[in-house]
């Protein structure tokens, strides 16, 4: 396992030549420069550094908004690749690079810069800036989280799409003509972007040629010759693609990377899709040696990882109120930015089965699948995050490579079970093709969607919220006391705890709150659907999403073939653990009344005295909390408690299905169907429930009150569908006595280590109710560093064969390693952890997140 950069290099140095873990000298040179940059502050465009369209092209200010957006995109690309960007160090070309281009420093956490195109108070016409911001939308609202159709790109090239737009525009209504114009303008901008890079390559080649005449050593001469050839060929390539179809493996990788970077530079943080399926035909045609192809893949890995920041003191915050706005959320976006510093949504999905409509399932893994796994193992990066689809027919060597990659410390690949996800996705709507379901890929974290043909967004359904509201008559515990008396109201005013007679009655109340939450979510979504199309259209991405060009509609205006929305429940393990306490200790054993429990939770386990109602005895609270903390927990193969998670999952997914069919939404859905259905594509509103906190396990707990599992108010919850972490205010079972003082205030201890074997734990997730989570529900595991490879392969095999849930992620690190890394982050600069949706460097995390990873349970062999 690689824990620091220096040890990584020393390890590579000791490997014999030709060792499979030893990258080529070119990759090593590129990597060492990249590592150097990780320690420094990345160049970042200044606030509003790209300016406004009126600064650059005032003549187009009177054009319709989509056309202005097209110009803004084209100008952005021209600026960043050109002198403006080069001078700031935003873009550059290095002689060793096989793949040319640069990602922007824009991560989901640090935010992005866009070239503004909206009319303001100073312009003639409507004040678009004010109007859109009133509804928490702005030019930063593009959501990303979507895979373009890169097969279209590599097989057709942009010229062909431009030509198609010209043809279709002739028959189009005015608003659709505007859409086609915007696509043509933006794609011409992408071509110019490639041309500018080609110029830069030629300049480098010319510099190297001059230097060749002065070179003094054979090593230098051979390096310069290689660089001249490389830059010359890169320039030729960029003059040809992405405008024309790709004709080689390297062409295809270059084209995909360039488009990926163009999308990110224009504010659309998209992912890369099923790379192995897209590239394999080119590799077969090229017939290049394996090491050469591997080097190209490694180069792509380097390019995708160049913007890492290892020091959280030097990060930027360019976030606005509406960055990546969640459709239907109706408020400011405010993700947990501190946990998203190095998250760029650059997921690559590999493996799985062939995407066809045939009755039999065929394994899709190929040489590129294996190269991606090799890259993930031997290059100690956090990105691209690799998502490996597995099924019963997944070859053994793929699982062996996956286990090696996981044990190398990158916390990837994530594993996804095709046999569970494909049927769920296929059932997600009336018109989902089996081929599409079989082609699923991760969007940017792990959420599933159909690459190249889907509009996607998600929204959170907080599990803790419904639990609190069931206990507290429709109010949360977070602000109980002087401000909101019993708590902040937000749902039906249901029965007070004192009147609830049984667990079943209590659970029925909880389902009422779930039902209201789901209906609110669906209503918000229906009302908001399509609005982004008139605010922040996305012409480049739309050009590469099936349905958009055909329908003349932007992706954000109903253009995609599939419209997929994922309500994601959070906190299921905390709710399940709490329901266990409520059922067993309150209703079955009668150790305490529900009313008394509510009083305890309202008081945040006794630490808040300024509350209404009962004031429980502090000693009683401490004793009961100790018992709750040591109670069985979800995620350790104990059906006594797991059953509550299964039941909750079922309540949630059934409510989603029921809400879709509810008459209250029929009018809204019909209106959308009438507006967006075309002869080619029936209107498909696919609601794909899932479970996901991603990085927001700290944020997700930060507004929730105390819970009956022993967690205090505002403390983090589990990530995704993982077992809950130990509460942050208690001592861990392995805490030595000399460190107890830290927790002297509570004197509460987890006396039992929450653990079981990785294999046994899979039973917790192996339930049919979880299979309805078509958008994914990852079990996030932590395992020790000495977990044997063969044992991990066996676990992965069992997962591929259908045990466990539909997704699993594995972070490898001992608890002691985490503790040491907190004390000496520089020494542990390669220690990586799973953040729910992707991998992050532990050293860059802020304190609460670090504590969370230390407090996750460890699963043994």
């Amino acid at each position: 396992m690689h824990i620091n950069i220096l040890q990584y290099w020393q390890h590579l140095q000791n490997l014999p030549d030709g060792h499979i873990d030893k990258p080529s000298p070119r990759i090593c040179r590129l990597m060492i420069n990249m590592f150097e940059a990780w320690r420094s502050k990345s160049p970042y465009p200044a606030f509003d550094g790209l300016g406004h369209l009126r600064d650059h092209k005032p003549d187009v200010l009177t054009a319709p908004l989509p056309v202005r957006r097209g110009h803004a995109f084209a100008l952005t690309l021209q600026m960043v690749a050109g002198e403006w960007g080069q001078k700031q160090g935003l873009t550059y070309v290095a002689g060793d690079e096989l793949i040319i281009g640069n990602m922007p420093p824009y991560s989901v956490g640090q935010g992005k810069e866009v070239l503004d195109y909206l009319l303001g108070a100073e312009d003639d016409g409507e004040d678009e800036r004010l109007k859109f911001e009133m509804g928490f939308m702005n030019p930063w609202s593009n959501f990303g989280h979507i895979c373009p159709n890169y097969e279209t790109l590599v097989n057709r090239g942009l010229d062909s799409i431009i030509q198609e737009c010209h043809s279709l525009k002739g028959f189009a209504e005015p608003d659709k003509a505007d859409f086609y114009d915007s696509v043509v303008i933006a794609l011409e901008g992408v071509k110019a972007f490639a041309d500018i890079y080609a110029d830069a390559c030629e300049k480098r080649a010319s510099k190297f040629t001059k230097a060749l005449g002065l070179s003094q050593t054979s090593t230098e001469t051979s390096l310069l010759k290689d660089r001249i050839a490389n830059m010359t060929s890169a320039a030729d390539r960029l003059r040809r693609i992405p405008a024309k179809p790709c004709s080689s493996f390297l062409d295809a990788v270059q084209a995909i990377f360039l488009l990926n970077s163009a999308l990110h530079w224009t504010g659309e943080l998209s992912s890369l899709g099923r790379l192995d399926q897209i590239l394999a035909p080119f590799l077969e045609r090229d017939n290049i040696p394996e090491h050469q192809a591997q080097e190209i893949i490694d180069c792509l890995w380097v390019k995708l990882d160049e913007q890492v920041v290892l020091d959280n003191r030097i990060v930027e915050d360019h976030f606005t109120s509406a960055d990546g706005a969640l459709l239907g959320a109706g408020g400011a976006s405010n993700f947990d930015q501190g946990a998203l510093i190095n998250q760029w949504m650059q997921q690559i999905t590999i493996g799985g089965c062939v995407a066809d409509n045939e009755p039999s399932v065929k394994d899709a893994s190929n040489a590129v699948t294996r190269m991606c796994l090799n890259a993930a193992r031997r290059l100690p990066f956090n990105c691209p995050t690799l998502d490996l689809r597995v099924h019963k027919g997944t070859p053994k060597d793929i699982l062996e490579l996956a286990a090696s990659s996981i044990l190398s410390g990158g916390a990837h690949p994530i594993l996804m079970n095709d046999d569970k996800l494909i049927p769920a996705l296929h059932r997600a709507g009336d018109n989902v093709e089996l081929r599409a379901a079989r082609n699923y890929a991760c969007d940017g974290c792990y959420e599933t969607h159909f690459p190249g043909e889907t509009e996607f967004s998600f929204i959170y359904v907080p599990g803790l919220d419904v639990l609190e509201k069931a206990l507290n008559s429709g109010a949360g515990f977070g602000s109980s006391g002087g401000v909101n008396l019993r708590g902040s109201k937000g749902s039906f005013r249901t029965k007070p705890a004192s009147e609830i007679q049984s667990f079943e009655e209590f659970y029925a109340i909880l389902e009422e709150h779930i039902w209201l939450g789901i209906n609110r979510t669906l209503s918000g979504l229906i009302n908001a659907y399509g609005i982004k199309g008139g605010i922040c259209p996305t012409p480049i991405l739309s050009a590469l999403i099936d349905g958009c060009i055909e329908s003349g509609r932007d992706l954000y205006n109903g253009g995609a073939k599939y419209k997929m929305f994922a309500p994601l429940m959070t906190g299921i393990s905390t709710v399940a653990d709490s329901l266990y306490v409520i059922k067993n200790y309150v209703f079955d054993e009668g150790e305490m009344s529900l009313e008394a429990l509510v009083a305890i939770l309202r008081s945040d386990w006794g630490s808040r005295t300024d509350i209404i109602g009962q004031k429980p005895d502090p000693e009683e609270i401490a004793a009961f909390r100790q018992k709750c903390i040591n109670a069985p927990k979800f995620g350790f193969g104990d059906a006594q408690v797991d059953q509550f998670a299964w039941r909750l999952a079922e309540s949630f997914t059934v409510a989603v299905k029921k809400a879709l069919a509810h008459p209250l939404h029929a009018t809204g859905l019909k209106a959308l169907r009438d507006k967006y259905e075309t002869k080619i594509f029936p209107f498909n509103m696919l609601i794909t429930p899932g479970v996901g906190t991603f990085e927001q396990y700290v944020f997700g707990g930060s507004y929730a009150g105390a819970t009956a599992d022993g967690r205090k108010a505002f403390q983090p919850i589990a990530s995704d569908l993982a077992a809950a972490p130990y509460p942050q205010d208690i001592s861990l079972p392995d805490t030595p006595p000399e460190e107890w003082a830290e927790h002297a205030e509570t004197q509460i201890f987890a006396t039992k280590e929450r653990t079981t074997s990785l294999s046994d734990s899979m039973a917790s997730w192996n339930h049919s109710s979880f299979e309805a989570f078509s958008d994914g529900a990852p079990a996030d595991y932590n395992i020790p560093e000495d977990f044997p490879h063969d044992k991990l392969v066996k676990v992965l095999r069992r997962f591929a064969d259908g045990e466990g849930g539909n997704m699993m992620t594995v972070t490898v690190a001992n608890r002691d390693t985490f503790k040491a890394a907190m004390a000496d982050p520089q020494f542990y600069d390669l220690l990586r952890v799973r953040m729910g949706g992707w991998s992050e460097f532990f050293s860059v995390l802020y304190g609460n997140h670090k504590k969370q990873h230390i407090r996750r349970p460890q699963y043994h062999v």
Partner: protein
Amino acid sequence: MTNKATLNTSLPLPEGLFKGHYQSGITDPRWPKEPPAEFDPKAILDIINERIGAGRLREEDADILSLEDVRNSYTSDYSGRISKQKNISIMRANCLLKKREDLQNLLKTITEFASEEIRRIPSVKHLRILEAIPDSYRVTISLGIGATLFTTLDGFDRYGISHHKPRYLKPMPSFLGDSEELDPSASASDFIFLISSDHPYINVAIVRFFAEYLNKRFSKNYGFKGKAVEFLGVEEGFQRKDTREFLGFDDGIDNISMREDELERLVYITQVDNEPDWCINGTYLVYRKIRERMPDWEKLTVVNQEAMIGRDKETGKPLSRQVTGPKGKTPVYSDSKDPADGALNSHIRKVQPRRNSEDLFGIDDLDRRFLRRPYPFFDGLDESGNSINGLQFLAFMKSIQQQFEHVVNMWQLNPDFPVQGAGIDALYANNILETLDGGYYFCPPGLASPKDYFASGLFRE
């Protein structure tokens, strides 16, 4: 009898502030590749013979016994090599200014000061009649810029110049062998001034001039109220007359030189180096103040000392079975993992393994070399009465990452190089060496004309 013949070969002069592509004081002053016209081998041989005759030098200790030996010695010890001045003062400072224009003006003022001092002709007033005064004290003043000028340790770009930051510039990290008291990021500074001359008092005068008058001149010239620069202290170094340093071994035998035309190639950034354009002809400076613990060293037998260094103490020849180069002082290791050519953790094997093939990065070991321009220092005695002495290690290179850090991290302090369990450099493993202080800097290119100023490229947009 005087050593007139030696004196007749005058010392090379620095290139001056405005004459080269490169800053003065880095690869100059420098001996010419071929001996200068006044170099008189016969006169030198006569002097050596006189010394032997007078009993000042034992014949077996003299390695020059013929005219050919004299010429070889020029090739070995002078040809294309740096002719360091006798004294150095290392002054570090932080910039207290808040505005970009003020920084620009400060750099102009620093250039003005340096120019005045470099051009100053040695005074001959108030001299006693037998006192010899050279025509030049060979003053050079070189400026290095630290990473903190580009972005503070907490990431603030005070002057809007972070996009110009040289690619490999960063605060110096920690290394094995650092003193417990050393916190490299705490000793990071915005500027370093290397003030060199052939007389300690000249250095003192220049240091004092900077420390006491730079702020005043800046205020006067630009109407600035307050302090522009905070000086953080001064380090001193001197040169011995012989080629040895405190440990008693020759230092710099294998230092790079123009003899093989490798000096500028390994030191200065060129247009193919993927650095910002303004950095071309600039160089990185690694400064390490390394203590040499003499009582511990002197307890060792000569044989043990030689094993730790990897060279014969008297002759400076390597312990390898095969040798090459002038006077046979360059080792040849047929197998970098074979201890028969000297202990694998000996200093010279750990800092330059001289392998025959390219490394992991496709780079020759010899291309990892850099220019060392070190000076011994003496800081008095510590509380135990032990002398605090060692080396002001100053090294110039085109990439800290590919040269200095590679040498230190991958070889010298890597316990598993060249083989598993070889151990780190014996001098550090035995606590003979301990790094007390240091920093990383970038020395901007030379000045194009008297109107130019240090680091002016930072302000060319």
